[in-house]
């Protein structure tokens, strides 16, 4: 009997294409909206997480000054120096590595090509704190580091600008008139949300940068790697008291440095984007329910419009449950079809919108399954009332209906 009912429903839908389409339009839009919103929301969360993990996780960034939007006035707080780095490394438990950084911008020249780039001086700890693979060549050695040799590792953008994407290892390039031997090439990291192009960089031992480029021993940023077994907040606390002591900050006075915990920022931002995703998903879900009410409305109209047809079926010998099933199956088939079309539409919208929102294309199986299941359920719930009305019609009245 279900096979017959299914056939009848399909025939009826095929015979009234426009009406069927209008009936299911609400579901199409609702499903497409829910799936698109949730998927793009997830993609945004992922993009935020990716940008933050590009900064390195389990890592604290320590800078002089009071941090975003605070401080100002008074003398500029002192930069850190090599002794601070040593003290952190020696005195704080749970620190896996400390990478001091000093840098400047400069013009790099190779073989007639030139490009403005960033010079970043650091230690091998840098590659430990935020792993960054090489595509060719090697990192510098500890000996080269302590000697402050003129060796450098270049980012992919520099490689593109100066070498046309070719092999740079073994060549010598000049930055601000100072030459360095290229010993390695870094893999692509891409755009960072905050820092611009991360691949537009030339990395050298910090001693070389301090001696030849900045001309002082200042350290503007320290990346402090935290052991897996330690919490970043505990290390942050020890770090704060150590630095306060070393910088002679009296009780009751504010820090003149700031510590930025990427894991914590990541959690906060992820929480925010997830909440936003939930809000837009809820709004979209309302449109799905409205779509269900649309199905019910048009099915009710359709029952009235098809009263005579129902009368014919009843006269021919259809029992009430068969008429009920036909209308119910019709509603479910319609809403499922609408659901499917909505899913396809959603994928197209995501393909279209993801690049505009600068997030990666994403397919979230769960939301597709859930949205489809909801559309089927809507067919059952909102199809039932009209179907029951159809089944309860009196055959004589139905046949006489104009």
């Amino acid at each position, binding site marked *: 009997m279900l096979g017959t009912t299914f056939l009848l429903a399909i025939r009826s839908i095929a015979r009234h294409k426009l009406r069927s389409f209008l009936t299911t339009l609400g579901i199409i839009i609702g499903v497409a909206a829910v799936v698109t919103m949730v998927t793009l929301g997830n993609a945004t969360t992922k993009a935020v997480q990716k940008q933050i993990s590009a900064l390195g996780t389990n890592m604290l960034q320590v800078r002089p000054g009071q941090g975003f939007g605070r401080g100002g006035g008074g003398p500029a707080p002192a930069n850190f120096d090599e002794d601070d780095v040593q003290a952190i490394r020696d005195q704080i438990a749970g620190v896996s590595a400390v990478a001091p950084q000093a840098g400047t911008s400069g013009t790099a020249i190779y073989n007639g090509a030139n490009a403005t780039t960033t010079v970043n001086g650091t230690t091998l700890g840098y590659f430990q704190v935020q792993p960054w693979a090489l595509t060719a060549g090697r990192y510098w050695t500890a000996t080269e580091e302590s000697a402050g040799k003129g060796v450098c590792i270049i980012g992919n953008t520099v490689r593109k600008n100066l070498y046309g994407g070719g092999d740079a290892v073994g060549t010598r390039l000049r930055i601000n008139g100072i030459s360095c031997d290229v010993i390695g090439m870094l893999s692509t990291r891409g755009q960072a949300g905050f820092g611009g192009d991360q691949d537009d960089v030339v990395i050298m031992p910090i001693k070389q940068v301090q001696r030849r480029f900045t001309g002082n021993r200042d350290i503007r940023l320290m990346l402090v790697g935290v052991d897996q077994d330690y919490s970043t907040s505990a290390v942050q606390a020890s770090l704060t008291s150590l630095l306060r002591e070393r910088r002679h900050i009296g009780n009751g006075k504010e820090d003149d440095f700031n510590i930025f915990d990427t894991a914590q920022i990541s959690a906060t931002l992820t929480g925010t984007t997830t909440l936003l995703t939930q809000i837009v998903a809820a709004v979209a879900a309302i449109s799905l329910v409205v779509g269900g009410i649309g199905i019910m409305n048009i099915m009710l109209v359709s029952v009235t419009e098809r009263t005579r047809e129902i009368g014919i079926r009843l*006269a021919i010998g259809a*029992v*009430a449950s068969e008429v009920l099933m036909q209308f119910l199956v019709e509603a479910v088939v319609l809403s499922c079809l609408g659901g499917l079309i909505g899913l396809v539409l959603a994928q197209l919208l995501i393909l279209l919108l993801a690049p505009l929102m600068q997030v990666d294309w994403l397919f979230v199986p769960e939301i597709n399954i859930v949205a489809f299941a909801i559309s089927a359920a809507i067919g059952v719930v909102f199809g039932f009332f009209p179907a029951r009305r159809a089944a309860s019609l009196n055959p004589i009245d139905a046949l006489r209906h104009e």
Partner: protein
Amino acid sequence: MPSDGGQPLIRLHGVTKVYGEGPTAFQALKGVDLAIDTGDFVAVMGPSGSGKSTTMNILGCLDVPSSGEFLFKGVHVEQLDRDQRALLRRRYLGFVFQGFNLLARTSALENVELPLLYRGDAKAQRRETAMAALDKVGLAEWWDHTPGELSGGQQQRVAIARAIVTSPEVLLADEPTGNLDSERSVEIMQLLTDLNRTSGITVLMVTHEPDMAAFARAIVHFKDGLVERIEHGHAAGTAIA
């Protein structure tokens, strides 16, 4: 009409029908007695509002009497519920209406197949049986036309094919020629006569026109919700002889 002492196919006994309730209640049937045998061809005549359609609806198991008995093949139909009556219709009855009542935008073949669908026949068998029924009414080559593409006479023949496709025992027709011109009407009557004779289907037909009633073997005259008289002696086909 019952020719021997045996059980008639259909028997109405003291059937009344009241529409509505209270002061607006209207008694459409006031105690109808009627017996119809297998193989009969009965025409029902009478002035408008005399209760012809009401009686046909009861005989067609579409409605139940307010009081009295309706026996079909010995079964008390007035005691059956809605679905049981539907199954009775599906199995034994075929309907032809004045307004044809075909499904719009649906081919003749699919219209005729409809009762077989509810009977649960397989696709190939459905097709074959429906084509045979269309052939019987002379519309085999029109099988893929929708009602909109057929003339009134053709539509009524499709409706008759739909009514007989399940090989019913009784064909109920309420003014089947009411919407047709006289030439088309005669064709339909010849078809019904043929079905009655060759397939042995019992035919019950309401009509206003004496010319059409003349095809029947008996004419039941209704007046004011009662059977006024029964006219026997007509032989099916005399009108065209």
